[in-house]
């Protein structure tokens, strides 16, 4: 251990704060490059391909945005819970169940239902299902103080197993000749395109604003932040903490559920058990990197969508596993997490920089 003189620092100038963050991201990219070198890959080639693969052509830009939409909405949902320090890592399951509920509506409401009605009912069902899936751990947290981290995580597995059960069992498409897939949606259950991109992008932008206003301008939003900072303060101020936890989680899960509907309707045009596609987990990283700030979430999600799309591209173009991009994602977050320290504390003597070992 290196002996350091560490003291808490006063508020850091904004400029310096951004400099530290940018430096952290740059260092993380350098470090990710070193990992790639270690595995015999050319980091320059990979980073170049990540960019080319994500924004190189109009088609790829569209693919990137399509991936940014679910990520952004899920991150917004997660940010509401995280602001309260309620560790909702159940987004994956909330997305999955939201998709299942939307699918149930799509397959049962009938092909003659007018499209707007169909889509609205699907969205509502998805929001309710996602919200309900988040409500279960919320009520236990609120009433008994049950640990939500493990609870929400276990619900992910249960939701995915449940959709597997549906896909291989009761919802199997008889027309698929024994192939375990659920029937495709009819035309009236598919989200329309606006300017060549499915309407989810508008939903995402609207939600960025709504969540921002909700958190910073409404009483409920303020209460959520207070509970996150100090439950004691909130209790002292006479806030109904159970009520706040439950409301926040309903919103959080509801938004994640809506992601499920969007993915089922616009992307898969059906339901598969892997519909959440890790967005629920990646959204945890993006929400945290954006410091739970709505506008920043939008930006971070676009960058991460580039990483995901670029990762898919390098798998095909360079035969490099797409998991490279999740290593890069993890590394970025590690460095940003570490950099927080330098924002909060002053170090008397220049420390030897410690490198993480992968």
């Amino acid at each position, binding site marked *: *251990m290196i002996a350091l003189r*560490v*003291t*808490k620092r006063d508020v850091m100038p904004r400029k310096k704060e951004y400099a530290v963050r940018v430096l952290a991201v740059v260092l993380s990219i350098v470090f990710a490059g070193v990992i790639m070198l270690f*595995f015999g890959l050319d980091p320059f080639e990979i980073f170049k391909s990540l960019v080319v693969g994500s924004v190189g052509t109009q088609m790829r830009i569209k693919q990137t945005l399509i991936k940014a939409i679910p990520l952004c909405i899920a991150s917004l949902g997660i940010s509401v819970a995280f602001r309260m320090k309620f*560790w909702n*890592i159940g987004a994956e399951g909330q997305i999955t169940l939201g998709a299942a509920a939307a699918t149930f509506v799509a397959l049962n409401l009938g092909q003659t239902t007018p499209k707007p009605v169909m889509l609205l009912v699907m969205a509502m069902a998805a929001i309710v299902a996602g919200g309900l899936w988040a409500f279960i751990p919320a009520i*236990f947290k609120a009433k*008994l*103080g*049950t*640990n939500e*981290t*493990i*609870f929400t*995580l*276990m*619900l992910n*597995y*249960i939701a995915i*197993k*449940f959709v*597997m*059960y549906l896909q*291989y*069992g009761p919802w199997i498409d008889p027309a698929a000749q024994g192939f375990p897939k659920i029937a495709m949606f009819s035309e009236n259950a598919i989200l329309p395109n606006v300017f060549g991109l499915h309407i989810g992008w508008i939903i995402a932008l609207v939600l960025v604003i709504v969540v921002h206003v909700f958190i910073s301008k409404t009483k409920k939003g303020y209460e959520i932040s207070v509970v996150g900072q100090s439950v004691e303060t909130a209790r002292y101020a006479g806030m109904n903490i159970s009520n706040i936890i439950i409301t926040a989680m309903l919103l959080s899960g509801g938004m994640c559920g809506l992601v499920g509907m969007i993915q089922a309707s616009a992307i898969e045009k059906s339901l598969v058990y892997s519909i959440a596609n890790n967005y629920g*987990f*990646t959204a*945890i*990283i993006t929400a*945290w990197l954006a410091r739970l700030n709505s506008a920043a979430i939008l930006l971070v999600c676009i960058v991460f969508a580039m990483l995901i799309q670029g990762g898919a591209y390098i798998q095909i173009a360079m035969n490099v*596993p797409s*998991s*490279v*991009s*999740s*290593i890069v*994602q*993890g*590394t970025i*977050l*590690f460095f940003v*997490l*570490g950099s*927080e*320290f330098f924002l*909060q*504390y002053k170090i008397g003597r220049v420390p030897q920089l*410690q490198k*993480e*070992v*992968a």
Partner: protein
Amino acid sequence: MQSFLATCIVAGTPLLFAIIGEIITERSGSLNLGVEGMMLLGAIAGFATAMSTQNPYAALLGAGLAGAGGALIYAILTVTLRANQTVTGLTLTIFGTGVASFVGQPMLGSTVPAEVSAFFAKRAAGVLADIPYVGPILFRQDLFVYFGYIICIFSAVYLYRTRLGLNLVAVGENTAAADASGINVNLYKYTHILIGGALCGLGGAYLSIVRIPIWQVDVVAGRGWIAVALVIFASWNPLKAFFAAMLFGGLSILGLRLQAMGFSFSQYLVDMIPYLATILIVILSTRKSGKGNLGPANMSRPYFREDR
């Protein structure tokens, strides 16, 4: 029934390593949610080392080092840099998943070399195997399982009967007091987070080398998270961890067992049982915690001497 219980032990062993690893970590005051990631790092490192060296000892060493490596990232971030433990642990899981799937890509579907498999074949543990009833369940297992027993007993003795172990408990319970009494708090934290990580890595390696000796991406399948929950169930006690691990090992194979007995139901619904049971345990343990069963008192609190 005997053969079922013997299989429970096999299914429970990866959990046993991970639970004890996390108990040791949490005793130092750190809640490391990266167990799943460290198990995956251990699983792939153990598997890859087994493939390239055909040496079981090297495979174990590789798995332990990989788990400890993941834990080192966690320790640097949370102990030295005081980062948020929850988010750091989650990131470690995401990172470990990425590394395991990346490194494992060329090995997808490969099988563990015969030399290593033979080393971990079941063998009777001398006279112990002849103990009526218990012998065939506990002592006709592979060496890795026996290693688990040793770790379990050793860590219980360490925690409750040695000065080092008691110091560790003190660090987790009251970091400031431990610091004041001259214990090198950060050294204790680092060491035990690393040991905990190494044990999680070994748990992962048991899965990839012995339990499912063919490399597949989702080899750990949430067991790391179940282990985090079972630490509470075991009330931070390595001996209770043994029973928790075996119980959950049993739950995870119950479905297959019942199907083999002629019951017919969806495999996917049965697969939910361990996850549902984990939730149940998390709920029950919160009720218990009202009576003063909360684990190390200073857990999840970054320690900063000048904050006292």
